[in-house]
């Protein structure tokens, strides 16, 4: 494809050291009419300070209700290449590992059916293919699915789960994030491809409280690895850190949120009972400190973006759950949550919002989890609380 548009404003964004998306678009534009018109329309947006996309229409592949975001230009005559410019969400493999062979295949198919532009990856985690037409969707899907790739989620459905790198390369993983992510994705295939929920439902799995996949902020169900046991201390390694310039008092002892670490200049000691497993000391002295004992996860529920009554972060529901293959207990818990949500939510009401509307008790009772102090930062401040008849007779 030859250059179709002058893009003086976008050209500015090829300058500077950070890799340029404009350069990427131009590369694709050199081969794709769609990418070319995308570039032209974007230049216009830069001039007029507004986008030119219509609300998405419903498009997709046979038998699926999601995985494709329909997108149409509001200026199809001016930019016919983006008259249709749908994105396809390909469900990424756990942990975003690829062989070059697999990814090359993905590129080849995409060049055949789409704009040649991608997002590696989308915010939810999918491998996002940016820009194709309605008629290309079926063949594209046939090519991908026959090679073992499936679509990710969109709409009011289970969304593509994602996870941190966990045991694959991280010494702090308490759970097998990649396998949990894979298994949950498989268990919820139907819910992922056929939107039947009140709204979206996202799962993210992090191996520890460092939460490298932002699960506590961006997943309706956040699964965060943790442990019950002592932090094992290698005192030689402590000394190694001391000798290599670490101010153990300032950086470790004083920064422990529970003030449960002490250090006498030679030996570090931790009052494990009072440790909240925040991961600070471990992350800063990884050679010296190692959690031991039972491994499992904390299950939290409800985070989401601010539309419409302010962002939520996920709330601790199950302080500790052992997570071992085949992860049926976890699946069952999630199904119970979804069932309650599905039965009670209004359209476009996330599970966190529903819990807020109905109160934690109803939710806990529905999923069969008892009240526990770990679920709250602090108890309620007002004297207004409900009693059920069964509570009154219980005493």
């Amino acid at each position, binding site marked *: 494809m030859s250059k179709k548009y002058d893009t003086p*404003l*976008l050209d500015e*964004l090829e300058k500077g050291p*950070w*890799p340029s*998306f404009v350069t990427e678009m131009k*590369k*694709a534009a050199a081969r794709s009419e769609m*990418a070319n018109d995308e570039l032209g329309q*974007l230049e216009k947006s830069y001039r007029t*300070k*507004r*986008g030119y*996309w*219509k*609300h*998405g229409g419903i498009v997709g592949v046979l038998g699926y209700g999601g995985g494709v975001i329909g997108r149409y230009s509001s200026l199809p005559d001016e930019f016919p290449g983006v008259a249709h410019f749908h994105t396809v969400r390909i469900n990424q*493999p756990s*942990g*975003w*590992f*690829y062989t*070059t*062979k*697999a990814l*090359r295949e993905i*590129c080849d198919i995409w060049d055949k059916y789409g704009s*040649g*532009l*991608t*997002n*590696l990856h989308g915010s939810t985690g999918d491998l996002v293919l940016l*820009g194709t037409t309605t008629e290309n969707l079926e063949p594209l899907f046939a090519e991908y*699915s*026959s090679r*073992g790739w*499936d679509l990710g989620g969109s709409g009011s459905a289970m969304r593509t789960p994602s996870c941190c790198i966990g045991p694959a*390369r*991280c*010494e702090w*993983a308490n759970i097998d994030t990649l396998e949990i992510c*894979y298994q949950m*994705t*498989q268990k919820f*295939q139907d819910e992922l*491809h056929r939107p039947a929920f009140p709204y979206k439902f996202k799962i993210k799995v992090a191996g520890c*409280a*460092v939460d490298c*996949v932002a699960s*506590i902020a961006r997943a309706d169900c956040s699964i965060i690895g943790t442990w019950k046991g002592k932090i094992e201390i290698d005192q030689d390694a402590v000394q190694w850190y001391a000798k290599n310039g670490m101010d153990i008092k300032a*950086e470790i002892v004083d920064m422990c949120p529970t003030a449960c670490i002490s250090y006498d200049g030679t030996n570090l000691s931790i009052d494990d009972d009072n440790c909240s497993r*925040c*991961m600070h000391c471990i992350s800063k002295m*990884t050679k010296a400190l190692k959690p031991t004992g039972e491994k499992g996860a904390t299950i939290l529920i409800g985070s989401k*973006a*601010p*539309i*419409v*009554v302010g962002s939520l*972060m996920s709330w601790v529901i199950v302080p500790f759950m052992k997570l071992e293959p085949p992860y049926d207990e976890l699946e069952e818990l999630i199904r119970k949550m979804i069932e309650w949500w599905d039965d009670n939510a209004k359209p476009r009401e996330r599970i966190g919002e529903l819990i807020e509307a109905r109160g934690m008790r109803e939710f806990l009772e529905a999923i069969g989890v008892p009240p526990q102090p770990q679920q709250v930062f602090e108890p309620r401040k007002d004297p207004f609380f409900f009693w059920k008849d069964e509570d009154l007779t219980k005493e």
Partner: protein
Amino acid sequence: MALPQRQTDIGPPHYKQFLPPVIEKNYGQWKYHERIDAGTMVHVAESGDKVYTVRVASPRLLSTDTIRDMLDVADKYCDGYIRFTSRNNVEFMTADESKVEPLKKELKDRGYTIGGIGPRITNVVHTQGWVHCHSACTDASGLVKAMMDELYEYFTEKELPAKVRLALACCVNMCGAVHCSDIAVVAVHRKVPVIDHDKIKDMCEIPTTVAACPTRAISPDPAKKSIKIKDEKCMYCGNCFTVCPPIEIHNPEHDGVAIVVGGKIGSLRTGPKFSKLAIPFFYNEPPRWPKVVAAIKNILEVYAKNARKHERLGEWVERIGWERFFKLTGIEFTYQHIDDFTFMRDTLRTSAAFKW
């Protein structure tokens, strides 16, 4: 040409087939890691095996050309394996120490930016912007590019007191991680939407539209078979536009972006925090949004200068107090900063102790 037989509900390929052999072998058996430089680290397994990781910046919006170029590098140095991070960087891994320097050299030669590891800025989590989303009231990729050009050395080299997570969302739907980021940009509207009453008839359900408004600004307008909006109640969230496109929320003249700061995600030390409003508004100034970029740099540098080691931006602000943050950064405090929504009660100061 005949298409291959399509399959459904197969889910993603199992990740195991994509794991480099050293990782498969030592899966779950890592002992510790060390940072080698701004873009290189090594993880050491209980077995003694090591895996070196070189991290490379990505604009996320990638052409297949560039992806193929990366794959060539991975074939040459990484036995044909490659990985992406949860923040869209690219990771090249090898078990062979001798390959690390040549790998880095080749990456640099091909024009890649190495960095993002350790107490630095890493890639910006961002969204579609004018590139693809109908809802965008700023561009995402462009503003991110302008920002990172300016902050480049904090990715490739310079250390900060702790990791600083940047994010950008092109509308308040906030598909990025703006609400829990150290410094983030979110695009906002400032004018009540304009209603196309003719189109509403056909395209929207009135009750759904009325219910979509969090501040009850919308009521039915039976005469027009449409809806009406109480101006003083609307805070321009655009939720009505999402459910009913003829309610046009976009207003290029008055749309722009806000900067929020002090969020975090990990539970280390002080636990996850929401970002808070630092600067309520900047006009869109494509292609380089110079004022936004300068404001972010200012906040970053005031933080870098004043915070303690390991202290995240939000932790630093909470230690010194927000009144001090506004003083040190020279940012003006406005009515917009005062919460009048869900968290009003918790954010108004109920203490006689504060700084001047």
